[in-house]
């Protein structure tokens, strides 16, 4: 029994000793605490200095950013002034170009046949593109590139149309009996003499008077088997004038029958 008690005491003492040893290792000494305090105090001070320096840098950067905004606006005004313009006009010009670009995009997506049917719009696009060059703002790279691109698209579409448009070279009256009526009547043209206003309207740049065409003229033959409203209106006006003239004179020969000169 006595031995058991002694053994118990020894075991308890050993256990207490090991716990004591373990906790002694975990606990900080005062020296260690002081070292930690010094280390973290220094670190805090360094970080505070760094933070303050960063505040300064951020403040400078903000100021620089604002200054650059001012510089940019001033330079932009100078750029527009170079071409006798200003921001408002540039904005309006930008919108105008956007509109023409949208139209060009729409036409570019058409098939060749559909494009031919809308050939007048291609002409309008070409004219609009040329008009854009009349504005000195076009000299500015932002606009120069866009208007150049529009030019290229208009040219491309015009070439596409040119490839599709049939032509007829006018001969003489004496040999070929060429007049708009007879040309229109040809099987390889419209096979229909009444379609002659189509040829007239498709060549307004060359034919002022549908009764007068000249040898050597190369007439565009617009595609399609029916006249559009413009062509019909032109024909109606022509016949009206003829009827009025005829009412005052002897009835004339069939319309558009003037010989080619």
């Amino acid at each position, binding site marked *: 029994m006595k*031995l058991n008690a002694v053994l118990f005491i020894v075991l308890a*003492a050993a256990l207490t000793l090991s716990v004591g040893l373990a906790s002694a290792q975990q606990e*900080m000494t005062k020296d260690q605490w002081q070292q930690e305090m010094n280390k973290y105090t220094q670190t805090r001070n360094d970080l505070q200095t760094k933070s303050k320096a960063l505040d300064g840098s951020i403040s400078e950067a*903000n100021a620089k950013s604002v200054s650059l905004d001012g510089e940019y606006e001033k330079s932009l005004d100078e750029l527009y002034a170079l071409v006798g313009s200003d921001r408002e006009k540039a904005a309006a010009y930008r919108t105008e170009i956007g509109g023409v670009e949208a139209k060009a995009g729409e036409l570019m997506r058409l098939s060749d046949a559909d494009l031919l049917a809308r050939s007048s719009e291609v002409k309008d696009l070409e004219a609009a593109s040329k008009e854009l060059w009349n504005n000195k703002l076009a000299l500015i790279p932002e606009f120069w590139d866009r208007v150049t691109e529009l030019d290229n698209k208009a040219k491309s579409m015009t070439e596409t149309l040119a490839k599709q448009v049939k032509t007829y070279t006018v001969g003489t009256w004496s040999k070929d009996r060429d007049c708009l009526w007879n040309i229109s009547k040809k099987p390889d043209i419209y096979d229909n003499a009444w379609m002659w206003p189509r040829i007239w309207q498709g060549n307004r740049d060359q034919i002022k008077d549908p009764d007068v065409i000249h040898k050597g003229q190369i007439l565009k033959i617009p595609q399609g088997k029916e006249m559009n409203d413009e062509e019909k209106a032109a024909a109606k006006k022509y016949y009206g004038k003829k009827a009025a003239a005829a009412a005052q004179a002897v009835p004339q020969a069939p319309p558009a029958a003037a010989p080619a000169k």
Partner: protein
Amino acid sequence: MSKLNRMATTIGVTLLFSASLLQFGCSSGPDEKQLTSLQTLKDEVAQLEKEIKDKEGKKGELDKIIAEKMAGVKKINDDMAIVKQRLAK
């Protein structure tokens, strides 16, 4: 047996004495208040590190914005030179 008992008793007492020394006699570390102040300092350092990281991020973004704006100003100046050339033609 009694010799063994005596030896065991001696060892036990020695062990007990050492343990009590460690537990009660050798504890000369910082007190609770001091430990708290150390922890507060550590927390302050951690907070500062976070703030600095945020500020460095913000500075980085500002630098990027400034670079973009400088490029914009340069472009305008380049455009002016081009327009002057075109006007001269």
